[in-house]
């Protein structure tokens, strides 16, 4: 029997628009969902725990967030977390993604928790945009602003791919 339902895709934007480049995650997530109305926006998030409940039953969750890795500003990074075989990846060592973060539990820990109670999504992808400034204030850095269209396109591509496969 052919599955005709549309895949549930949740796009979560992390970060605050009042901390300059930290706001890019939410901006990109909102713009991508605006282009594909069958997907669901969640945000702006500051705590991965807020994903619990929001991503139940999702075929794909795309987390969009500013990152600070030392790469050139505006660089996009795509990381797919292996939901079925979670292991200690490089992410675990990163504040905000690992076990201990400023907000109690990091993204990977929240995913582990969700798995323990059968509430984990089937796929989890992180789209990161390298930021430059995260101090208080509004507006993106020029290089980050320039990366937004490509980041939106990448999120949209993931959504469409998931929904065409469902």
């Amino acid at each position, binding site marked *: 029997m052919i599955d005709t339902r549309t895949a549930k895709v949740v796009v979560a934007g992390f970060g605050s628009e009042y901390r300059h480049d930290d706001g890019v995650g939410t901006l990109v997530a909102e713009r991508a969902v605006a282009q594909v109305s069958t997907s669901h926006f969640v945000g*702006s998030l500051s705590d991965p725990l807020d994903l*619990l*409940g929001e991503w139940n039953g999702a075929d794909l969750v795309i987390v969009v967030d500013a990152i600070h890795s030392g790469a050139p500003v505006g660089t996009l990074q795509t990381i797919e977390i292996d939901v079925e075989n979670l292991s200690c990846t490089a992410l675990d060592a990163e504040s905000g993604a690992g076990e201990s*973060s400023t907000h109690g539990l990091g993204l990977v*820990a929240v995913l*582990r928790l969700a798995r*323990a*109670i*059968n509430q984990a999504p089937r796929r989890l992808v992180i789209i990161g945009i390298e930021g430059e400034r995260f101090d208080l204030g509004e507006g993106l850095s020029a290089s980050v602003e320039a990366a937004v269209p490509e980041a939106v396109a990448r999120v949209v591509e993931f959504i469409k791919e998931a929904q065409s496969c469902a």
Partner: protein
Amino acid sequence: MTHGARSSRTISAEGISRVEGEGSLRVRVQDGRVVDVALDIFEPPRYFEALLVGRHFTEAPDITARICGICPVAYQMSACLAMEDACGVVVDERIEALRRLLYCGEWIQSHALHIYLLHAPDFLGCADAVELADLDPIGVTRGLDIKRTGNLVMQTVGGRAVHPVNVRVGGFYRSPELDSIRALAEPLRRARDAALETVEWVAGFEFPDVTSEYRFVALDQSDRYAIDGGRPSLDGHTLSAAQFAEIAVEEHVERSTALHAKLDGRDRYLTGPLARFALNASRLPEVARDAAAAAGLYAPCVNPFRSIVVRAVELVFACDEALRLVERYEPPVQPAIEVVARAATGTATTEAPRGLLLHQYDIDDDGIIRRARIMPPTSQNQLSIEDDLRRVVENGLSLDDEELQWRCEQAVRNHDPCISCAAHFLDLTVETS
């Protein structure tokens, strides 16, 4: 991290997790006595007050809520009420009821999160919520179901589960449909039942035998358990929000980037669940009072470790109150009343889940913000948390380093501090000589 010898012991923990923010804790012990406790906070000070200056008064609820992602409704409500105070307007009863419903949603969400995922692991010997979920998946699922009901209330009233977008000075952008509000009744009934189970669950935990002396401050409202209205109450009398703003003096402490509040520049005090329960327990609905009594909880509760039971009782209250508001809901005639700016100072206090939140603004005739003051619960509670730690360490000197560190972290979490609001992680050092 621990290191030391019998004559000179140092315990340090870099990053106390399950606390919203970043900071460190240092305790110094000499001759069996705690001589210094310092809860240090790193992170630039709250520059966002400066960010508000020059903005239009209608922008304050969203800007402050977006900066503090943990309890956005509290920020929105205190900002709205402060601006309405400045402009001399009071919203009608239907708008007020809708605001209270939204605020109940945040209490449900926040208390369920703190009880199940941040605080309960301490009592059950689990490193974190992930371990607890492995140990008790049914319990954690119950907590998340309650949290999700809070999210549903926030989404229905506020437009979004995480960052409500429907709130404005004077009321709301749109009134929720009657059917959408009434549809909340069944999930809220289930959440109230689950909250009652939560009270039973946490009442069975083992609590360290520690008592503290607190000067409690909570909002007082004659006909209800105050959340979004009423006057600050302390020492048996009430004050206006503006009077409270005058006596609650914040000072900058060199070791910290947060401000510490003291009454009359001198005395520590405590806001939050323990304070609310101590001063307002008689105003809880019967279902919450009965749950407290069945759990052996009577006001005042001065064992900070039992704050998890108080929080659970408040969870019952928030679900019950939300249900009452849902059943009586009538859409406001207009979603918002008109608010015309005038040059004035406005002050408001509301009960964020973790304690009193004060906003005060000076605005001009054009509605431009000229001064902003935000006093979050954590800066008000910080000195009381330090005093708790002093007692916990003195009572626990026989414990080994690891156990003492664990108990200190737990003592900080008793008050659900949101250090990211007050300024941002904890690292703990206990020095013994």
